């Protein structure tokens, strides 16, 4: 059924081809969103539901600082709020990366360390950011420390899982061969361990950043008096739908820009050593690795995968 479109008849006109191309579909998506938006606007029984123009106007005022809203004496406009959040995110992210790499390496190399940490990593992974947010707000007050710890708590398990998975996936034969040929340890680390760890490390980077950001904004709602999370809550409390949607769009723009401008180019770099794997595909594949929520499931799936592989080998032998 689905192949019908790709196997379109040869005699189609250029106009049709343009309409049928995936790029057009991609461009059509925002149009569809606008259509749905207007549909809701005309059918909903709500006095505060904004039109797209309202929201765009609001966003423009925020960006050009002409709205006249001063959020507080410390963080008075969009840029300062955003800067505050970004600073917290970066500090928490760096700490999570360093700590997570150390623990993840230990867990990947030593079975004992793995058994020691495993259940607690899972426990931290399962805790919603909300729990951290409410608790940190009470424990530490409205400073910078609470949100930073929330970023660490959200990102750390993802880094650990990915780094650990990366160490486990290093090709053992290559290590054995390197040892057999008396390659010095630092060379093994640089040429075997690091390159095979790279995709996993990169996935860790990407997810720690994304998850850390998600945890941060929730914490800023409950345990902070500034930052982007606090600002969107400000508009929610003010019952201004255009403010909430406008800031939500700022969030989306920020996240998308980060993906397209920072992580996608980085992915290309990280995967240059093995060009046959599509970088994005690999990153998405690692989403799968993360999605398995850790080791137990991962192991069970690996066991399941083995019979199939061995079957293939046998069939080739035959």
């Amino acid at each position, binding site marked *: *059924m*689905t192949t019908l479109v*790709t196997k379109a008849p040869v005699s189609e006109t250029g106009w049709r081809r343009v309409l049928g*191309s*995936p790029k*057009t*579909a*991609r461009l*059509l*998506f925002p149009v569809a969103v606008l259509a749905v938006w207007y549909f809701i606007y005309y059918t*909903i029984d709500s006095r*505060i539901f904004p039109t797209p123009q309202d929201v765009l106007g609001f966003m423009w005022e925020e960006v050009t600082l002409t709205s006249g809203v001063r959020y507080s004496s410390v963080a008075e406009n969009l840029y300062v709020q955003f800067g505050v959040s970004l600073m917290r995110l970066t500090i928490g992210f760096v700490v999570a990366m360093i700590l997570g790499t150390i623990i993840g390496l230990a867990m990947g190399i030593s*079975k*004992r360390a*793995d*058994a*020691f*940490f*495993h*259940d*607690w990593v899972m426990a931290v992974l*399962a805790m*919603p*950011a*909300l729990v951290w947010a*409410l*608790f940190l*707000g*009470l*424990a530490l007050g409205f400073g910078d420390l609470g949100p930073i710890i929330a970023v660490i708590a959200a990102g750390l398990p993802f880094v650990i899982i990915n780094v650990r998975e990366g160490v486990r996936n290093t090709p053992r034969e290559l290590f054995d061969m390197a040892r057999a040929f008396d390659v010095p340890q630092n060379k093994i680390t640089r040429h075997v361990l690091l390159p095979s760890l790279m995709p996993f490390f990169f996935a860790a980077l990407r997810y720690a950043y*994304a998850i850390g950001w*998600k945890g941060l*904004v*929730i914490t800023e*709602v409950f345990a902070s008096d500034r930052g982007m999370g606090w600002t*969107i809550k400000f508009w*929610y409390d003010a019952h*201004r*739908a255009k403010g*909430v*949607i406008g*800031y*939500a769009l700022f*969030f*989306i723009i920020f*996240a*998308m820009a980060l*993906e397209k401008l920072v992580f996608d180019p980085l992915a290309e770099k990280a995967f240059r050593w093995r060009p046959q794997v599509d970088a994005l595909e690999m990153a*998405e594949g690692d*989403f*799968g690795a993360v*999605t*398995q*929520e850790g080791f137990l*499931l991962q192991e*069970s799936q690996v066991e399941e995968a083995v*019979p*199939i592989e*061995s*079957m293939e080998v046998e069939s080739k032998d035959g």
Partner: protein
Amino acid sequence: MTTATHDAPVARSAEEERLIAIRKRETRQRWQWRLTGYIVVLGLWSLVSRVVGENLIPSPLRIIETFPDLIESGRFFSSYAATLTRIAVGFGLSFVFGIVLGILTQNKWIDGFFKDATTISLVSPALIWALIGLVIWGFEPQGWIFAIFMTTFAIVTVNVAEGIRALPKDLIDMSRAFGVSTRRRQREVVIPFLAPFIFTALRFGFSVGWKVTVLTEVFSANEGIGFEMRIASQLFRMDEFFTWALSFFVFTLILEKLVLQRYENKFFRWRTEVSA
């Protein structure tokens, strides 16, 4: 490969015994270290709670003691019922939609159309969907359904699409060559192969889904786990707060071990048959 096992049954059993002994020792060691982990973390926790005060960080013992109180108060089961209903409705919808969309993304046009939607859903925080849903629909169910839907559907879609990309092309080609009907091909080749990816989607989607649900309950509900957690933290009843948080963790663990894994084993029986 198979002939080697027939040659020397005696040697194999000795080898096997050695392997079993090694495995046993490894299991014992793993449990020892696991136990050490529990002791160290729980010990540290008790120590911290002793230092900063039981009011702020209740000790693990205190949390266990609070648990029966919560059940006795009657709020426990009603809160769980409320939250689980929300998850079932919201995540159920997004699960079905996610699977359909994941299958449809085989079509390049539909894939292009929804590409940005899935990326946006994956990278943007649950908070914005919760707040948008609430500010538009208020306390109506559409609000939280919208929030749960927007945060979880892409997880399902991405996993299903990933599974489809990894489909064994040769099996499908073969079934085509032998004139197997489309429906039968879907049922006996495609769906069994996709099952693990769908299970992954279910698991991860559920874990994200419950976090969003709790978040929406904090803002806009008068029952449910999120609501209880907010009340407990506002009244500075940290023991209750942690009990709520940990109880759900235990709940998901049980769900995972007892329900999901059992179904998964059932689903994958065909694979063990293959290996035998």
